[in-house]
């Protein structure tokens, strides 16, 4: 044995085998139940939108690394796949192809690469893409196909989502509450909405996977959901005619998808547990304000993006507590 071939480095000499690719793989696995429900409810269109979104995100990441950053390609970490999946999960299943590709280009390009690639982006890339699409293609982005049209794509018949009823009650534009999906329909995912957000049970299963594998901690999802639940319960009890019951708030729209998968994005969320809780509470609060009083039907994306901007400030204010001060 040639001793001069032994490597010399400082401690520690072993690694726990946590790596970015592994975290991303777990996120993809955790998103699979929601994808399965989407295919079950929206049929082939869910597959098309997801596939196009993922493929174009991967393509733009590759192009961006090669020609924009001129750095070694970072496709291997799998973050482009996660961005593509999350972008698709935030779109109605009837989005035309060119719009998805545009959204993916913005998500990867403007959302991530212009800042220097993974780890440097201040805003969640998938949400940057989504909000860009929301303001660019407002009609398509706010018309949701009804469930059960297995073969329809851009020609699917659309209908109102539960959030329409939520806002309708508050703003008094006369909605027929008997059309609201039942609790169990929402729970299993038999309601109109974006591809990945319809099934509460699938998203909760994903959250459990993330928590059990310790990919994320409970702080962000629980604080967002708790804030929404508290506000919704208080308002509902104050005036049941104006405000819908809290369980509908928790299960409709992008709340679960956003709080489990989008707000918990490593790069754009705070570093300490205390910071995470503050961040979560603010997201929950802003979401409820937009849902009830804003002009957009759903406020989750905006709430997360707004709070992303505050993350550096939160990190500055909420420090890790030193050992001598436990």
């Amino acid at each position, binding site marked *: *044995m040639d*001793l*001069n071939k*032994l*490597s*010399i*480095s*400082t*401690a*520690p*000499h*072993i*690694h*726990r085998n*946590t*790596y*970015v690719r*592994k*975290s991303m793989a777990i996120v993809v696995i955790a998103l699979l139940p929601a994808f399965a429900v989407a295919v079950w409810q929206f049929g082939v269109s869910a597959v098309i939108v997801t596939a196009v979104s993922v493929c174009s995100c991967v393509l733009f990441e590759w192009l961006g690394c090669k020609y924009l950053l001129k750095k070694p390609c*970072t496709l291997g*970490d799998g973050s482009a796949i996660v961005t593509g999946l999350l972008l698709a999960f935030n779109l109605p299943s009837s989005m035309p192809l060119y719009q998805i590709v545009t959204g993916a280009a913005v998500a990867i390009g403007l959302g991530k690469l212009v800042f*220097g*690639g*993974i*780890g*440097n982006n201040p805003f969640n890339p998938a949400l940057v893409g989504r909000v860009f699409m929301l303001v660019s293609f407002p009609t398509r982005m706010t018309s949701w196909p009804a469930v059960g049209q297995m073969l329809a794509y851009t020609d699917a018949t659309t209908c109102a989502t539960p959030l329409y009823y939520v806002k309708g009650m508050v703003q008094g534009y006369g909605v027929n509450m008997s059309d609201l999906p039942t609790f169990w329909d929402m729970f299993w995912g038999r309601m109109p909405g974006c591809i990945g957000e319809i099934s509460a049970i699938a998203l909760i299963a994903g959250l459990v996977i993330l928590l059990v594998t310790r990919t994320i*901690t409970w702080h962000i999802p629980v604080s967002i959901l708790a804030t929404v639940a508290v506000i919704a319960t208080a308002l509902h009890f104050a005036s049941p005619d104006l405000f819908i019951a809290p369980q509908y708030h928790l299960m409709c729209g992008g709340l679960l998808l956003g709080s489990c998968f989008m707000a918990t994005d*490593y*790069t754009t969320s*705070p*570093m*300490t547990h205390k910071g995470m809780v503050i961040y979560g509470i603010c997201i929950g609060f802003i979401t409820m304000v937009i849902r009830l009083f804003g002009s957009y039907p759903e406020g989750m994306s905006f709430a997360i993006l707004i709070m992303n901007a505050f993350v550096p400030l939160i990190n500055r204010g909420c*420090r*890790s*507590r*030193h*050992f*001598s*001060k*436990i």
Partner: protein
Amino acid sequence: MIFKTFRKGGIEVPDNKMTKDRQIEPVQIPDIAVFPLSQHIGAPAVPCVQPGDKVLVGTLIAKGESFMSANIHSSICGTVKKIDKAPCLNGAYAPAIYIERDKEREEEWEPAIDRSETLADECSLSPQEIIGKIKDAGIVGLGGACFPTHVKMMPPKGAELDSLIVNGVECEPYLTADHSLMLAHSAEIIAGIRIMMKALGVSKSYIGIEANKPDAIALFRKELKSCKNIKVVPLKKKYPQGGEKQLIDAVLHRRVPNPPAIPANVGVVVENVATVYAIYQAVQKNRPLIDRVVTVTGNSVARPSNFISRLGISVNLLIENAGGIPEDTGKILHGGPMMGKPMRNLEIPMTKGTSGIVLLPETVSTRQPEQNCIRCAMCVEACPMGLEPYLLAQAAADSDWETAEKEGIMTCIECGCCQSTCPSFRPLLDWVRYSKNKVGGIIRQRNIKK
């Protein structure tokens, strides 16, 4: 069973304790033993023998003359060959005493040493006499830090001691030297604890043992069944529980303030089990510190073992006893894989602080290429000192020493939790060490000016 643990940070690392069922085996007495003069924290010892002098096993060969220093004794019987430079762990060479064994003669020990195995648990000495014996025997902390034990046992004025914590945690993966010692010599360790309690004047003591050593926990519980003032504290398996501050927090829920405060300021003295055993040998048997238990192990080592070996033996010889260096070895470590130091020169002698030699395969020891920080906060969660390693590393990379100092870089214990948990393989601790060095220098400069 309730398992306690410390409150802040820490990580779980795979155990890999391949030698946990191996009994302690003796290895051959080396033909040449090398004793570096500085194998402890503090001033180097001063040689008190000349080349050509005959020494016996246990003869004092170098004296710790200043307060913060330790005596060194010969571990073999023979002739002092030379006082010359010997290789050290940091790659440099430092003065050491070389002793050649007298192969013709039968091994002769210093007459005062009692070599019988009988247990002597009565001790009628006064605390001063006990500490004097510990100092004479050259005992240092055998957990790896090598802090002179007699210094630790004389707490500063104003510190009221009430407890002794015996560290049987051994949270480093791979190492089982303390574990095997606890199983083989529980009675001696308990006698040693009583001696220490007497010397320190404390009424309570605790033995902290991690959950991955259930046999040691059971054995000490059985032996201490009727004993009220020595308690076994089972601890959850979590690295770095063997760190002094973490252990005090885990056992007594007390936190040691930032330096210059020491554990004595919260009324506690922490000693490693191997040190306690050495204290028993020194006080009851007049036996100086001339040998210790060392684990030689690795994923593909032929015969991973716990050896009891004379100090001064070369690392090479220890590895040969365990079956030689496997082909796939990428790194040879002095100490455990979390805090140990790598070596290339295997002529380095085993010293008082050698608790293990770990031969890591290349696949385990090779560092992955560094990627962007994704701000996942895993390092913040892992840091047992409550620091934010990603910030410290960034400050170091920016040469921003002011921020580094403000962020508490000097309280880092260099446990390596941050770096070994980073999913982007960033060399966080490398940056922190570099920065600690710089900031330490700046602080010293400032104190001189004052």
